[in-house]
């Protein structure tokens, strides 16, 4: 049994421990991320927490030059942009995450299909500090 349950907040609780969790449907076997109480594929309510290996493939990305407030507070701006993308995990499901260690200033050099591995990034000041999902080229 996992120490995490299927309710939404467990995703970030696990991430803080550098674990990437989701759910696996016990009826149809499909994976979801973040974890779901109801399987989006077959509607079954027999789902259990699963921990992903954290490797995957980059499916889409963008380099953000005009950041939202929270990212601006983390130090990003037009001169210091960041990459965010969608990664398909080896187990199948996809998730949005910040993409680190890519050629931010030459986005045309960032390639869809690049193999990725999971990491985390913390943003925010002291008490507000939160751990977020990130990936970098494997």
């Amino acid at each position: 049994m996992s120490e995490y349950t299927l309710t939404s907040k467990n995703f970030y609780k696990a991430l803080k421990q550098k674990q990437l969790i989701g759910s696996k449907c016990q009826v149809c076997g499909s994976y979801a991320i973040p974890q779901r109480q109801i399987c989006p594929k077959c509607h079954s309510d027999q789902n259990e927490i699963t921990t992903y290996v954290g490797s995957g493939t980059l499916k889409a990305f963008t380099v953000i030059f005009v950041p939202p407030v929270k990212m601006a507070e983390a130090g990003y701006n037009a001169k210091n942009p960041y990459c965010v993308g969608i990664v398909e995990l080896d187990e199948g499901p996809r998730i949005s995450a910040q993409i680190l260690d890519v050629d931010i200033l030459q986005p045309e050099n960032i390639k869809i299909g690049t193999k990725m591995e999971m990491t985390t990034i913390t943003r925010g000041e002291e008490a507000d500090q939160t751990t977020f999902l990130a990936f970098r080229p494997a």
Partner: protein
Amino acid sequence: MKNHKWSRGVAVVGAGMSRFGAFADKTSRDLFVEAYQEMKSSIDKGFDPDRIDAFYLGNFSSDQFEKQAHLAPILASWIGLSPIASVRVENACASGGIAIRQAALAIASGEYDVVLVGGLEKMTDLDISAVTEALATAADTQFEIPAGFTFPGFYAAMATAYMAEHGAPREAFYHVSIKNHENGALNDKAQFGQTIKQIMESKKKRAEEKGRPVPEWQNEIEFLSDPKGNPNIAWPMALFDCSPVSDGGAVALLVAEDIAKEFTDTPLYLIGSGQASDGALPDRETLASIPAAEAAAKQAYAMAGLTPDDIDLAEVHDCFTIAEIMAIEDLGFFPRGGGWKAAMEGKTARDGEHPVNTSGGLKAKGHPVGASGVGQLNEIWKQLRGVAGARQLQGNPRIGLAHNVGGSGQTCVVNIFERRD
């Protein structure tokens, strides 16, 4: 009857809109009244407001933009329509198109005969970062926004998937922007009355006047390819790929088909309508198209008994240039991967085989999010009745389609309108 599932048909007998733009001295209710007044004067045989049975208002987030929720009954009362049933419909940027569909369904059910539809958003009271935060609430704020996504970012990510899948160059997006600005320059309701070429020339002139080095842009493509003229917002989407932040209102009057001729001899009939939903971006099987749009279009075509080639003009949801390219594929005007070529070859221009966004689209006309879907109907109203002025399509267009998307594609609604002679 073609609309076999609907108990009775629905017609549009009037439409009006405010100008779209940034209006510091107006509130949303002023813009609504402006649109309502124009709608009233558009009804050929005149109309008595006491005939209105209900009001459906498309509005994304007056609570965030103006700190005013519960907007529908407030507006109804403001123009003397109380106590009619008044409903605010919220589906992000598709709120207006969904309000049209909900009003039509209410008429088709037999509950109401005459329904006022509004679309409204007053966005520019907030500063740009607050607007961005407000718009972000249309996405999954638990799992997408914390990753660092913005709305331009979602569409930019779809653009990278599209470019990788279909080999499209960034230049294809520029052609959407150039075309929509050319159309918008002919629309006195548009936020931007300038073509990209005029914007480029005025930037050169300003540099010259200020004694700065004059950029050497020879044409619009060179201008748009230069980050100094067209700065990156979310690569590969740059400033001129993005629709603006706007204020605006739009209104239409929908009635039961059997009473339409009491209002006008030239109503537009709502002959097809479809709506679909989807998950957050990562949950979709494809990132290079919008599946909810394809699904909504299929429903609308099936109801109308039409194919994409029967559509004389389309107003599509070009919140970003990539969105128009995906839309013209999702709607079946061009095959998968053919949208970017069609854009570059001028096939979506006013004289092209599939005219798209003759109004200037969200890009040039402006994008007061909740109003946009009803704004699209206003363009179709004008084009099909032959009163679109300098941008009027030739060839007596008879069938128009409106495609309105919410969020990054979690909602799409497609409505098809026909003029019958």
